[in-house]
């Protein structure tokens, strides 16, 4: 069997599994899996660029995904009129002061000669900058959060079409990645891992606590959609007539229609990304990246700028993760900072990349679909398994209750098991790098 045949077959199997969900459970569930699978595939492609092409160990995926989500709020939501009028400029000034408080000491550090005087100067500037920043920032925050805090209490967004938020999400994530890469990219792989893990936690902490920016744990809901609303569709006589003519129930048909619209948008993005990524991987640039990954010293001796290439690929991969994050938030229509969990948004994406096949774009896409399918379906499967195991036990027996209750946690166990098994028996993944 040729490689292409095998790979096609793998994709057919995965989509067969999803289709089976459609026949067995409902097409709503199946399309939900497809849509999140598309987003997962894009996230996996982002991580694959960093790990598969260049061997960079980034476990801060969650942070970039969350930044993408924040972008949909900043771009798509209408702005809060009172807040901008009251303190918008003050806030911008405060943020500017914040940046100055970081960059001025860095400049001083670069310009002055090493020694005690430099250390004192930098430290003093940092402390001074911090207090200046806080003195401007705190009142601005208070004022913004006071504006109608039950409904808004944050700056709001620019009120632009939400599709613009997708590239903006990628840009914001890229900006954050640039900052991180500048400080942490020179470090050894495990240090980079810990550093990115930390950054992701900090980004989530900021989004949870800075209510003026993202409403924090009060969440932002009703983020505008790029596709029609179910209720509007049901109110549209033309739509209702058409679907009833085809023999569908308007309520189900409207939800499926919306999911299909999202799916179509996501497919366009995914195909464009795959096309670009394949082009890049097959170009001299892609070969250089893999050369650097396989032997940094040799590549450097050949005159390749390893640091600059690492910086480049780290930013690109993170931008793709940010894009996926923006798409996900506009699919869900709400931003809940508390829902970002590292196991779900960082480590699960890693499982996708490793299982799919690191270094291969199609592998990452396949992994994204397969692992997302399993993530959704393991829970009912676990419940079914537990039902079967406990069938012989009498009702109310403590072990039966406990097992049934714990079935929900089968997910993590299964994902870990899959990762470990794949690493052991097929370390190059389902679709290995060519």
């Amino acid at each position, binding site marked *: 069997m040729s490689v292409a045949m095998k790979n096609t077959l793998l994709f057919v199997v995965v989509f067969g599994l999803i289709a089976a969900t459609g026949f067995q459970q409902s097409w709503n569930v199946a399309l939900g899996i497809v849509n999140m699978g598309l987003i997962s595939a894009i996230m996996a492609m982002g991580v694959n660029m960093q790990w598969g092409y260049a*061997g960079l*160990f980034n*476990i801060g995926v969650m942070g970039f995904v969350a930044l993408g989500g924040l972008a949909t709020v900043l771009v798509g939501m209408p702005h809060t009129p009172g807040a901008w009028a009251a303190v918008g400029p003050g806030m911008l000034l405060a943020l500017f002061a914040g940046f100055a408080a970081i960059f001025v000491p860095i400049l001083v550090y670069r310009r002055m000669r090493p020694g005690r005087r430099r250390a004192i100067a930098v430290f003093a500037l940092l402390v001074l900058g*911090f207090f200046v920043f806080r003195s401007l920032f*705190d009142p601005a925050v208070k004022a913004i959060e006071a504006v109608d805090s039950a409904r808004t209490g944050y700056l709001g967004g620019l009120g632009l079409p939400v599709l613009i938020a997708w590239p903006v999400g990628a840009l914001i994530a890229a900006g954050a990645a640039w900052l991180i890469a500048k*400080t*942490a990219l020179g*470090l*050894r*792989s*495990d*240090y980079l*891992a*810990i*550093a990115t*893990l*930390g*950054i992701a*936690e*900090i980004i989530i*902490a900021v989004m*949870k*606590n800075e209510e003026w920016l993202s409403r924090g744990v009060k969440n932002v809901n009703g983020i505008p959609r790029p596709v029609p609303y179910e209720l509007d569709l049901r109110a549209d006589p033309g739509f209702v007539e058409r679907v009833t003519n085809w023999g569908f129930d308007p309520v189900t048909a409207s939800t499926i229609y919306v999911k299909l619209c999202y799916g179509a948008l996501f497919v366009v993005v995914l195909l464009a990304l795959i096309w670009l990524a394949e082009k890049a991987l097959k170009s001299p640039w892609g070969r250089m990246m893999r050369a650097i990954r396989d032997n940094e010293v040799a590549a450097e001796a050949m005159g390749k700028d390893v640091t600059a290439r690492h910086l480049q690929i780290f930013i690109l991969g993170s931008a793709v993760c940010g894009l996926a994050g923006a798409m996900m938030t506009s699919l869900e229509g709400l931003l809940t900072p508390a829902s970002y969990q*590292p*196991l779900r948004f960082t*480590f699960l994406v*890693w*499982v996708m990349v*490793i299982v799919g096949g690191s270094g291969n774009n199609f592998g990452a896409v396949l992994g994204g679909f397969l692992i997302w399918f399993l993530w959704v379906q393991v829970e009912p499967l676990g419940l079914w398994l537990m039902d079967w195991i406990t069938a012989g036990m009498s009702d109310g027996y403590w072990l039966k209750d406990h097992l049934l*209750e*714990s079935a929900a*946690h*089968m*997910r*993590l*166990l*299964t*994902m*870990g*098991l899959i*990762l*470990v098994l794949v*690493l*052991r028996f097929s*370390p190059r993944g389902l679709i290995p790098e060519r």
Partner: protein
Amino acid sequence: MDFLNAIVAFSNFVLIPATAYGAQLALGALGVTLIYGILRFSNFAHGDTMAFGAMVTILATWGLQGAGVSLGVLPTALLALPVGIAGTALLVLGTDRAIYAFYREQRAKPVVLVIVSMGVMFMMNGLVRFIIGPDDQRFADGARFIVKARDFKEWSGLREGLAIKTSQGITIVAAVLVVILLFWFLNRTRTGKSMRAYSDNEDLALLSGINPERVVMITWIIVAALATVAGVLYGLDKSFKPFTYFQLLLPIFASAIVGGLGSPLGAIVGGFVIAFSEVTITYAWKKVLTYLMPDSLDPSGLVQLLSTDYKFAVSFMILVIVLLFRPTGIFSGRAG
């Protein structure tokens, strides 16, 4: 008088909690650093190993409590600790046999082992949630306080009270004992010396007849003991919730790296550096400052440098600063 009040407030809200927290981090970081020194990879499953150890101990504690056994003023969990250590040791030895041993034989790159440990982390996390559930569990019993705030106020006549929780006292005593035991083992016993030799130069150690599998096995057992003690102490002091143990991974790794990965002494110092920075930067200093400053200069705000939710940011900042200026950590670990 004001000065004494300030000192008491400082001890009550900063010194004692940070010392206890630092001891817990140090024990966790010791485990990470030992694995790094002997097995040469960063073990991401360490937080969940701690959770597993704490969980086994909690189950044993409940068993003891059910049987009516107690330690009086001390928490029963101390009595259940050996069971927890044994259970965790079995688990990590099993994981080593089933998973890590294969990669050791292949001499796989450390980063592969790190990814493998991510898989193990998932599984342990799932296992703990599967057995005990994702919710908070309380298992502390015995006396809650060694020194009560009100008793202290009456005794000293100060306005500020000083409270020392039993869990804090136990944490500090236990940490000191464990560290003394560990260093005695590493420096004085034959096995400990062979471990250090293996950590310093694997090939040389193999040439001189040290059995690597034995070294690895003993390392895992020690790590299991350290992780369980750290997990139980943290659980007694705060509360047991599987997810918080996962989140401890960041400060623990920060401690180990700040101290110098692979250096046991560094892990301890790193633990306290991280704990004290976290607590001092996120503590609202208003109370202490009002005693120290003249009335006219009373601080208007809380004088809190960062809100408590940003405590991760603190360990992270220290980590980055140390890595930028002294990449091998304070005590130059083996990771250059």
